């Protein structure tokens, strides 16, 4: 009994659609080719489950109570870095976003240049910039804030420009028709329309930056990252679990907060 004559796909010729098959083959092919590069080894994976269980077991020791004040300090530092960097980025990306929006930019060349600049700013991950800035200004939270702010401007500038590009043109024309100057048109007609979207973007970026900030310490750029890595390297499991829990709690808290804020703002804008 052959299956071909009984089963078929809901297409005119009974076979699955070509683009779907082609892209599936492409992806599977790429995975097959790169498997050795990634050193995929299912045997090794299964074998490691035992090790991971043992590792997890080691985590549940009594926490290092003496360490907790420093944990609190470092978490606070991480949160502060996030907030400061994001606010700096907001201030810088508002004008840049205007310049990078096709309908608000003073000249096409300015638009192109700003877009390319923003693209470069967000191309490299924060950690790479943190490495570079630590090399330049030394250890501490300053290079971390700089790296975060830098990359954030890249993303925020782009998001903001896109929000401005989809504003309703009628209020803009209305304001301009009343003789408003170049800056006034942008400030009073474009910005207010783009603002609700923008606030949502800022919330999302805060979420992202908090996660990024937790690892910048790896290269000495402030925050909990350094303690995190050191506790692993030095097998200080009585610190590792509290650190992981603290990160989980703070990140989840911010997540819930920003979800709430976002839904309240969306509802407010609808009213």
């Amino acid at each position, binding site marked *: 009994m052959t299956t071909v004559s*009984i089963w*078929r796909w809901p*297409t005119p010729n009974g076979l699955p659609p070509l683009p779907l098959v082609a892209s599936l083959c492409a992806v599977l092919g790429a995975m097959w080719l790169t498997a050795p590069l990634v050193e995929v080894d299912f045997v090794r994976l299964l074998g490691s489950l035992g090790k991971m269980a043992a590792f997890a077991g080691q985590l549940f020791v009594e926490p290092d109570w003496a360490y907790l004040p420093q944990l609190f300090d470092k978490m606070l530092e991480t949160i502060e870095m996030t907030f400061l960097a994001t606010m700096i980025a907001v201030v810088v990306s508002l004008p840049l976003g205007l310049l990078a929006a096709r309908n608000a930019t003073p000249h096409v060349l300015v638009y192109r240049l700003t877009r390319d600049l923003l693209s470069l700013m967000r191309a490299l991950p924060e950690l790479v910039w943190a490495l570079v800035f630590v090399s330049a200004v030394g250890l501490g939270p300053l290079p971390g804030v700089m790296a975060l702010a830098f990359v954030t401007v890249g993303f925020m500038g782009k998001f903001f420009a896109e929000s401005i590009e989809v504003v309703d043109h009628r209020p803009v024309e209305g304001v301009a028709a009343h003789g408003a100057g170049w800056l006034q048109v942008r400030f009073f007609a474009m910005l207010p329309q783009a603002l609700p979207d923008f606030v949502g973007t800022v919330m999302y970026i805060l979420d992202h930056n908090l996660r990024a900030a937790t690892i910048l310490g790896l290269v000495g750029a402030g925050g909990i990252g350094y303690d995190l890595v050191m506790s692993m390297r030095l097998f200080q499991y009585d610190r590792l679990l509290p650190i992981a829990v603290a990160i989980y709690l703070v990140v989840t808290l911010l997540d819930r907060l920003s979800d709430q804020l976002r839904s309240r703002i969306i509802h407010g804008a609808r009213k």
Partner: protein
Amino acid sequence: MSNISIQSVSKRFPNGFEALKGVSAEIAPGSFTVILGPSGAGKSTLLRLMNGLETPTSGTVRIAGEALEKANLRRMRSSVAMVFQQFNLVERLSVATNVLTGRLAHRSWVGSLFYLCRNEDMDITREALARVGLTDKAWSRADKLSGGQQQRVGIARALAQRPKVILADEPVASLDPVSSEEIMGLLREICDRDGITIIVNLHQVDLAKRFADRIIGMNSGRVVFDGASAELSPQALRTIYQREGIEHDNSLDLALAYA
């Protein structure tokens, strides 16, 4: 033979709204019934009780003697098809695949999860599409069709189930008058030729009078009229459509005169 038996059914929603207050009716197999009434009368709720999209707060709904429960829901739904006001097609899928979803209950095989189907199911799909006159649109994307055509796809999907009952919840409310005629005519023809029990929710009086054998008039969650469409007198209409608290309202008579 499947008759539908509704016994003293009430439905109260979590927000306190009482959609149905003690409704009873027996629907004979192979009949064409129209439930007529204003918005908010409970027509939709009543219809949705018959395929398990809503559950009654009290009372029972039996189809061919069996009450609807979680355990037999899938089986019951496969023989009670529904046509919706907003068509409720999967827009991205082709017309043929949409109609094919009518066969899903008959095939729980894993193959259906890979979008596979048996040849028999494809034949049934073609039949159903021919019945509603959309054979040439079989491979178009569902959202590229007009309203009337999409509703016909909805009916084809219902037919593909080979159902004993077809429930139609305001099937023509989103359509223009010509398409509305088409759809109602199609439903009537299905009832006459295939002997499928058809229950249609409508708020248009003229369509109800012309197509129904029997009309159940509802107002504020209660049945206020139940009889042959010939018996639908102006007084009966007034009881169906009158609003609570407004006794003698000329505007209602005027509106009904033009209905």
